[in-house]
């Protein structure tokens, strides 16, 4: 007994000393208060490639032929520029933000709920669009957006955009679905087989559904929720939770869950449906439901600590070149940002299907954006911020 106490005394003293030391070491940077984009220099020219490129990407954005030999726009880039591409797949925007904070990556394909966090966090640098020749022909409604620019300064190169879709297994779920009610109000008929995206941003999907079904809640924008509106969305998600089989936090998990019959209906990205249908273990169908949808508008951003900035600029120009942008858009299932890409798609009607040139259609999708106390739709400052959403999302999962 006494011997034990003696052994324990030493580490306890060390622990206390460690706490004390750390206490003395820091306390420099205080609260940031109002957000201002940090002053980070912009590139003035693009030189020769550095031989390597480390990027954080959404699944399907940097295909090198390993998923499908015909789907490959990384190898030609490597051959032309000498930049060897090392792509790390990010499963959620939160993960992408945290990966970019490590400073080990040159760039990222950030969605709208990550872009501003990265800009104001000082993790990405402004982009000199003059150094990206293909930027000129990018759809004008994607330029100088409030998610990818600050005071008229672009912080990235638009990549493409699309909606989160409702997917179901055609062999196990009869009929055609056209409403998100399949995963909310009527989800009990698929009890244990419903799936949902495992990220706090999915709360917006519930809010969007409430926007259409419960107008008296007064939700105008799924990312600007007062605490009352947030609670309504959360209780809808808790109801849904009892019918969920499992959540999907990565595209591989979603593919596997549908192929094994673990999940039968739920939210998805088109690329997941394409992968499932190409594996031929089951067939799935996707639809953009009548209530509308949340979606994403992605932007290639360059890290403020990029070790291979020239390669990153070359990549940003390459990925929105007409052929590469057409390839990635068709593989992922999204509208390309590059207007000239539509002439290079293997399916000539591809761009019409995704309304690629239709600014009005694009305006109807509720793009992922980071909720803040200053309501993102500009309707006041009584909204709930993303950290509240995160806590609530944990509560939903229980």
């Amino acid at each position, binding site marked *: 007994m006494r011997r034990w106490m003696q052994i324990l005394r030493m580490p306890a003293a060390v622990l206390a000393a*460690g706490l004390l030391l750390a206490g003395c070491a820091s306390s420099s940077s205080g609260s940031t208060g109002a957000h201002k984009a940090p002053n980070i220099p912009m590139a003035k020219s693009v030189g020769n490639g550095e031989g390597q490129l480390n990027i954080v990407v959404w699944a399907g954005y940097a295909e090198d032929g390993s998923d499908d030999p015909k789907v490959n726009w990384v190898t030609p880039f490597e051959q032309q520029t000498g930049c060897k591409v090392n792509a790390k797949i990010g499963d959620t925007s939160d993960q992408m933000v945290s990966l970019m904070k490590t400073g080990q990556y040159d760039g990222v394909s950030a969605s709208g709920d990550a872009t501003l966090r990265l800009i104001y966090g000082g993790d990405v640098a402004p982009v000199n669009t003059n150094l990206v020749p293909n930027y000129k022909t990018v759809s004008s409604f994607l330029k100088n957006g409030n998610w990818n620019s600050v005071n008229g300064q672009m912080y990235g190169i638009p990549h493409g955009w699309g909606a989160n879709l409702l997917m179901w297994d055609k062999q196990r779920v009869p009929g055609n679905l056209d409403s998100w009610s399949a995963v909310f109000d009527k989800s009990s008929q698929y009890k244990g087989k419903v799936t949902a995206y495992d990220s706090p941003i999915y709360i917006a999907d519930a809010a969007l559904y409430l926007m259409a079904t419960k107008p008296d809640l007064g939700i105008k924008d799924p990312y600007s929720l007062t605490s009352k509106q947030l609670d309504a969305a959360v209780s809808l998600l808790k109801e849904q939770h009892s019918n969920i089989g499992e959540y999907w936090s990565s595209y591989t998990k979603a593919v596997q869950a549908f192929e094994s019959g673990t999940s039968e209906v739920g939210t998805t990205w088109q690329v997941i449906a394409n992968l499932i249908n190409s594996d031929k273990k089951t067939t799935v169908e996707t639809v953009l439901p009548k209530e509308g949808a949340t979606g994403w508008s992605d932007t290639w951003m360059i890290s403020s600590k990029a070790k291979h900035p020239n390669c990153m600029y070359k990549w940003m120009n390459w990925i929105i070149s007409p052929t590469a942008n057409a390839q990635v858009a068709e593989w992922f299932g999204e509208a390309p940002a590059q207007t000239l890409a539509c002439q290079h798609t293997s399916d000539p009607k591809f761009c019409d299907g995704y309304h690629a040139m239709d600014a009005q259609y694009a305006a109807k999708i509720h793009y992922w954006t980071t909720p803040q106390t200053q309501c993102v739709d500009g309707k006041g400052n009584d909204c709930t911020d*993303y*950290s509240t959403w995160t806590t609530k999302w944990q509560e939903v999962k229980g």
Partner: protein
Amino acid sequence: MDHEVARGQGVAAAAPAGVEFGRRGAASAFFAAKRRTRLALLLVPPMAWLIIAYLGAIAALLVSSLWTVDSFTSNVIHSYTTANLHEVISQPLYRTVAFRTIVVALAVTVIDAVIAFPMAFYMSMVAGPRLRRFLVVAVLTPLWASYLVKAYAWRTLLAPSGPLSWASSGHTPGYGQTAIIATLAYMWLPFMVLPVYAGFERMPRTLLEASADLGAGGWRTVRSVIVPLVFPAIAAGSIFTFSLTLGDYIAVGIVGGKTQLIANVISDQVTLNQPLAAAISIIPLLAIVLYLVGMRRTGALENV
């Protein structure tokens, strides 16, 4: 040719070795005189490792739990607040998840102990030397397979149209808490069997004969002689199974369906709010400390 070279090297190597020997003799004479220096030199490397790498990491974790983050950019702000600790205590969510985690950890421990006890008994007391060697290897073999492979094997096993569903005509537990307990109990079993087996090996066989001579039946011998003697070994094994379960989130993510344990909550928070994640991780830390203290109370750690 090769031979020559080798021999040449041998001769060359032999000469300095002799010189070395003389120097070494002086060194050992020096250390023989100074016992305290010798002890210090012997203890410094492991103590430094323990303090810097092990306790230092825990100290850093505890300190970072007092920091906070910018709720928008997720940048860590190095100003001190107990808000994170307060949230961990006041949020019912963390209590629910912590309780669930401890229930799972105890269930895994009990299942492993119940399986390991007769298994180790058989291996040590009944099986012949050849069979015993085979059984030890059989217990160790799963440790050679990758953790992920084993977890995905259970995912396949429990799938809606998987082998278990087929064998039981649809009566599988599916993914969830039961699946987590089964998978983790399977994965940590060797960590229980080996200490218990070692405990049986240490037990004097004569005690069993003495017990029989005094008229005790089989059950009585197990209850009054064997269990008290191997209990420290079971306790040692249970520390592995309990603490490994507290920290697991990968297998839980694979077979747990929508069920989450405390480590999943931590890993979810780490990307957004590292200080809060650090604060939550104090829960399993406390749980394992309490478990160790409880084990010590039973006297299980005295002889380990």
